[in-house]
């Protein structure tokens, strides 16, 4: 139990050999470009790129099955919800209306709506391979140093490392506390009244919080005794040296971002409108 927090899959591939910092920059570039742009051409290009990166990593789809299934379910749900809530948002957005067929009431299936929802789904899909890639090919030990290298203060970066370090411990704590409380009649199942469920959950969370607070004091002491916070900077044992390919990839990200934004904002807003 509790052995893998994030799904790091050690392998030897081009993506694995890149430094964590580079991969973080790739991840952020994709996240932000994909967030800021609604230009279908840019998004499609990103999709092609992110899928090719995925193949470069030698990660097999079966290794990330659970996450992929979650994504598919999410996108389908979101697709349906978007339509139910406002089937006419697409036409409004693109300023034209091409009805394909009529369902009922205000529910027309329009080309614009489908195109709009296609774009939204595209955004979610693009994020996925890159996020998976970042998680699967980056040793969690490199997270903190990568964050610190892109300018996050080291104290905050170290908090991330501490979170990854103590998640398994806290998970074990939670299970043990919940089991021993269950033996004393603390139930949280569906057959328990909601007010009772809340009260019972406090009976599990209270010991969990209190032991966590003790832990915080202990860890803080031990970190101070080993000079944490002594200097304005710190070095990182697990930091990977930047290589030529790292610099190339980073340069590519910068170009990608700039060009992507230029294309996106060509028409005065961030939409690509094929309906004009």
């Amino acid at each position: 139990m509790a052995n893998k927090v994030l799904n790091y899959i050690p392998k030897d591939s081009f993506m694995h050999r890149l430094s964590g910092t580079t991969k973080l920059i790739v991840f952020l570039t994709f996240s932000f470009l994909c967030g800021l742009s609604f230009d279908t051409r840019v998004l499609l290009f990103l999709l092609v790129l992110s899928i090719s990166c995925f193949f470069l990593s030698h990660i097999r789809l079966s290794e990330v099955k659970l996450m992929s299934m979650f994504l598919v379910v999410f996108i389908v749900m979101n697709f349906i919800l978007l339509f139910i809530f406002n089937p006419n948002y697409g036409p409004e957005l693109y300023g034209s209306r091409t009805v394909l067929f009529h369902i009922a009431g205000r529910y027309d299936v329009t080309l614009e709506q489908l195109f709009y929802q296609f774009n939204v789904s595209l955004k979610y899909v693009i994020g996925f391979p890159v996020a998976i890639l970042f998680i699967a090919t980056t040793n969690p030990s490199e997270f903190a140093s990568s964050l610190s290298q892109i300018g996050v203060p080291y104290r905050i970066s170290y908090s991330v490392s501490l979170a990854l370090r103590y998640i398994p411990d806290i998970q074990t704590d939670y299970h043990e506390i919940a089991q021993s409380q269950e033996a004393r009649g603390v139930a949280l199942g569906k057959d328990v009244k909601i007010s009772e469920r809340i009260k019972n959950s406090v009976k599990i969370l209270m010991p969990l919080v209190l032991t966590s607070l003790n832990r915080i004091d202990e860890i803080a002491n031990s970190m101070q005794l080993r000079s944490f916070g002594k200097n304005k900077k710190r070095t990182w044992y697990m930091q990977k040296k930047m290589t030529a390919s790292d610099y190339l990839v980073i340069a590519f990200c910068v170009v990608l971002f700039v060009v992507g934004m230029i294309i996106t904002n060509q028409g005065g807003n961030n939409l690509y409108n094929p309906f004009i």
Partner: protein
Amino acid sequence: MKPIISFKDFSFQYNAQKNPTLKHINLDIYPGEKILICGASGSGKSTLGNCINGLIPFSYNGKIDGSLKVDDIETKDSSIFELSTKVGTVLQDPDGQFVGLTVAEDIAFALENDCVEQEKMFAETLSAARKVSIENRMNNAPYDLSGGQKQRVSMAGVLVDKVRILLFDEPLANLDPATGKSAIELIDQIKKETDTTVIIIEHRIEDVLWQKVDRIILMDDGMIVSDCDPAALLRSDLLKKYGIREPLYLTQLKYADVDINNIEGIDCINDLKLDDKAKKQIVKWYTSQEKPEHINNNSNILEVEHIDFRYESSEQILYDVSFAIKKGEMLAIAGKNGAGKSTLCKVICGFEKQFNGKILFNGEDISNASIRKRSSYIGYVMQNPNQMISQAMIFDEVSMGIRNIGLSEEEIKERVYSTLKVCGLYEFRNWPISALSFGQKKRVTIASILVMGPEIIILDEPTAGQDFYHYTEIMEFLCELNRKGITIIMITHDMHLMLEYTTRSLVFYDGRLQADKSGSAVLCDEDLVDKASLKETSLFKIATDVGIKDPVSFVDCFIDYDKKERSHGKQSS
């Protein structure tokens, strides 16, 4: 020679407390010395350690009087960072100290904070890891390591700083006996290799004395009550007076009326040289003892048949475990960390459901009963009371387990009160739990299980981290429950507990039940002791030294005699 640590009329009072915790301490420690600081809980020994490493006053606020110099620096004018380059501290809890995601990162932690360059860091980390023989595990995460390995990493993590003083705060508290023994050996080896000054804070004298120390400082109530070499302290009666358990072999010699002032090597069981006279006295004592026998003819209350268990997609943890426990027994489950002891108990209590095999309670199959159902037959008490207590008030905490089972408020009150009386907590019934001592909190957790009326209680390490006084208090309480007819099962690696308070021990290693016999028989079985990560008792060594053919019976006699002596002592005092 100039002392490396020097307390001059030093007192300290925590801000939150009414009285000083340390009072007028005068103590000099010289470079290269190996010092043991002992004392009961609350004697101030850990506070003294925290003054040396700078946690006091830089992390815990309070008022300092007098002077403390560490390597010629007045600590209160220094900083925790400056002090940490002189004093390396290995804290009691290895999980709190292990902050890195892997062994290598954790060892390198101090170097990272000192902005050491990566190349240099790799070299220094590796060399520190070699000193504690953990260099083959550099990429392991903490949860892949045993308690002993984590402690080694902690040691390496302070050794990278090239400190002049090493401070160990209760290094044995979380280790099984064999690991504790090798920890003590490792400390000794590091001291010799690096020429550091070593300070060990512990109350388990016998285990620390496995390797020689130069001086023992005995503390009580914030003061130093004795400061002398180990032999002199052991020959005095100060240990008993201040609530520290003396080494078993020493107690044995005293019972046999051996004149300990004339015995050589009294301060370390390895060096102990018994002369012919002493040997004769011991044999005489032994032959004069009645050989105790424990027979339990009750029916079986719990039967475990062919249990196999594995967590989903991981290695098998239990293999074909079968045993029976008789009503009214008090027994120990012992073995290495990770041998499957806790898992077995979780299976018995129904916490883990996916297993093969059968569990019978009073002859009835309960393999499929729910956790809640089983808790009315079998109660489980966790090691750390803080993980069980969720209420502010004692009454609420204890009554939790009998709510929602159809009892009236009056009936609940009655049952809680009678349980509190049994547990000696009745007079505290309206107190907040936060006002209780650790031992009392433990009792609250036991009461909160007992109130549900189980016939068996399983306790995970009931006495972990407790000094002799609290250990005795908790164990005597459990004995009392046992006399009232409750069957008690304890997961433990405390060998004193196995010897003194149980009639039988189930020993596990590699997921299998490997032995089922009395504690004394277990601890006199060298092969078993070795494989289950236990440590043989010093009484066994005496028995073999003296030439007694049946060391098990010798140990039994001692325990029996000791019990009588102690209860006698209690009555007269």
